[in-house]
């Protein structure tokens, strides 16, 4: 009770003023980021007459016609292609990267630091450099314009990230559990699959989403390596040259929706993962 008396009136004003300023700044930041998403969704579904009426900011009549047009142009196939490429990228990059991530998390060995530094450096390498030479190679191997070809290139892009993330996740599972498994007669592989993997699974699932987003969003390599079997961003990139405004809006719409889903599903993990991989 006596402490309350000590609080001065000016401190109370200061306290609330501070709260209001913080809330205001947060509101500005959130609006700045969210408003373009909201308006894109609204205008992509807008009735054209209302859109072209300068007095109507928020339309009242909506239509799916623009989205439908884009799908007729091939957006649905491109979306399926993007999903296939992203899933293949997850499979490849985890099959190759998870063992390496495990090695970095669980073993001490000669050259570990330099190898890790190499992988950290690779993550910043401009991967677009590999696109054109890879196409030349793909023509010889029959991989040009295939989803497999794009996925293999995306795997190279995603691998450093997958290794860094998975080693972080595995390092978070106490090594004692694994040792306990070894004591009770499991071998190292068994201990990994029956103890560490189940415990690391939620984190690994989030890492998979992270990889999915990376592949899903990559456009330069995908656009160079494909001519017909395009991924969604490559398809849209190729389309917009001669497209009407509404086709462009619809393109933005189709690409934005999955992003919203990702953040709702794995937002917490994504923040942490960007923190790990970008340090």
């Amino acid at each position, binding site marked *: 009770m006596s402490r309350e008396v000590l609080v001065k009136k000016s401190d109370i004003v200061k306290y609330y003023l501070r709260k209001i300023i913080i809330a205001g700044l*947060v509101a500005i*930041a*959130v609006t700045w*980021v*969210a*408003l*373009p*998403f909201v*308006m*894109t969704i609204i*205008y992509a579904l807008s009735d054209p007459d209302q*859109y*072209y009426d*300068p*007095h*109507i*900011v928020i339309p009242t009549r909506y239509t799916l016609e623009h989205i439908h047009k884009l799908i007729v142009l091939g957006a649905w196939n491109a979306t399926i292609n993007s999903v296939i490429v992203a899933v293949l990228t997850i499979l490849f990059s985890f099959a*190759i*990267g998870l*063992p*390496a991530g495990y090695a*970095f998390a669980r*073993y001490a060995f000669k050259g570990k630091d330099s190898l890790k530094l190499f992988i950290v450096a690779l993550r*910043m*390498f*401009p991967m*677009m*450099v*590999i*696109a*054109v*030479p*890879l196409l030349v*190679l793909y023509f010889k191997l029959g991989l040009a314009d295939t989803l497999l070809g794009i996925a293999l290139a995306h795997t*190279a892009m995603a691998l450093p990230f997958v290794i860094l993330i998975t080693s972080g996740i595995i390092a978070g599972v106490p090594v004692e559990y694994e040792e306990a498994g070894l004591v009770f007669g499991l071998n*190292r592989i068994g201990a990994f699959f029956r103890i560490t993997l189940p415990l690391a699974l939620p984190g690994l699932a989030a890492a998979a989403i992270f990889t999915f987003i990376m592949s899903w*969003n990559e*456009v*330069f390599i995908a*656009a*160079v390596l494909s001519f017909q079997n395009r991924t969604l*961003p490559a398809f849209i*990139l190729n389309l*917009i040259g001669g497209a009407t405004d509404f086709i*462009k809006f619809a*393109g*933005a719409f189709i*690409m*934005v929706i999955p*992003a*919203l889903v*990702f*953040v709702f599903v794995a*937002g*917490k993990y*994504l*923040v942490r993962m*960007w923190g790990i991989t*970008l*340090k």
Partner: protein
Amino acid sequence: MPNEEIPTSVKLSKYTPYFLILPTLAYMVFFIGYPLVQGIMLAFFDEKGRFTLENVNYLLYGPGSLFWDALKYTILLAAVIIPIQVSIAFGLALLFNLRFPGKNASLYTVILPLTISDVAAGLIWYVMLGQYGFFNKILMNLGIISHPIIFFRIKDMEFIAIVITEIWRATAIVFIIIYAGLQMISHEYYEAAEVFGATTWQRFRYIVFPLLLPSLQAALIIRTLFAFQIFGVVWTLAGRDIPVLAGEAYYAQTELLRPGVASLYALIIAGLSIAVGALYIKFFKAKYLEAGM
């Protein structure tokens, strides 16, 4: 388990980590190392393997070459965008380091642009800044402007549109790095500072800022390297009106059908990235030594 097996497995286990990393290294050699060498071959050698400057000549003097403009705009965009991004991200990270209601939801909203492609970001701002876009409509209806501001097909305005879009899209990357760094600073430091009567400014200047410097360095390097690869946003908003290196690479490959020139552009981006990365590290390392850290 028979006893005599143990020595072999112990001996083998010495090599286990290398076996586990080997697939990664093999993959990297094949999918990055080999294309990199092949890219240099494409750029500087003809089909018979003889050294040639034909691609260099075409890149510099070929019909419709925009190389110098592309170099200029790539660097100019980075120089304009990065300081703004780092300032905003820094302020935002300090803001999110405070406690306030609805923090998580706000945080997830702020990182939303990270989950979309640069092509999508470009198109989103094409929606926002179009003649009938939200920006013009709201300003006109509020009576602030009487005619719509035209952003597209006018070079300088396209430049502004690209800057706005990039700030909107990629500030979040910088923010996350700085925010992660900020959260790692132990509260004990603040408490110690408080005990010794440090002001808010002093706490920022002598605790937060020096401890945050590594994160800031990482953010600057990553952001700069990505800035040199700017492509999707420019291509969707301005096409070749505002030429950039990656855009010219794409154009040389898909329109001119000159893989050698495209490779050369890509190699220039790689060279720039390596040079700037090395510069940053050198600069920041020197600062650390001066500060005695």
